[in-house]
């Protein structure tokens, strides 16, 4: 994992600790996913990125619908 990304994610975890609640598990999950990156093949990286991308598109569309005025 790239050192700059580690810093940014650690910063997110640091802020998340102060907020507590649900943000901390999100930051820790992101950290674990990035840490696992170096052990993944190119195919696994792409497959994982596509899977997350599909999930995020669905989550965002649901959030947009929920917050539409």
């Amino acid at each position, binding site marked *: *994992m*790239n*050192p*700059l*990304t580690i*810093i*940014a*994610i650690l*910063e*997110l975890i*640091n*802020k*998340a600790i*102060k*907020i507590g*609640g*649900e*943000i901390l598990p*999100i*930051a820790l*999950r*992101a950290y674990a*996913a*990035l840490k696992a*990156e170096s052990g*993944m093949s*190119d195919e696994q*990286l*792409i497959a*994982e*990125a*596509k899977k*997350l*991308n599909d*999930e*995020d*598109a669905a*989550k*965002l*569309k649901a*959030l*947009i619908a929920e*917050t*539409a*005025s």
Partner: protein
Amino acid sequence: MFNSQIHKSTLAVLIMLSLLACGAGKLRQARKAAHRIQVVTDAAVDTTTTLYHDGVIDKEYTNKIAHILLKVNDGNRVLINKAEAATADTPGVRADLLAQLRVVESAVKELKDAGVLGIKSKNGSLAFESAINALDSSIAIIQAALSGGK
């Protein structure tokens, strides 16, 4: 101030180390970058949803941010597909990947421009800012790698 100086020095050393580490496997780097951007986007999506459900950000602001995050997500989907399809490290492939990175970067800039003004809680805005910074650093690293030599 002292802490800030230490932080800057550490950051400078880490930038140098990361640029050195980018020497090998540009296509692998691009695939890693697309994955990394997606992981951080995922964290930003979940952070936004949580901040909204906790009442830290209002409905209107959440809707605006969700639309911009969808742009980031859509832009990164194209990057993922391009990184997957690339079979050789050629100037044309690099230019294509860099052009798509600029699309993602532009959506991230929009996210920054939307600001954290809609987040009333200081810690909430800091968490959101950190997610944006993580996106920024992921993009900057791969731009530097693809712009550099073999």
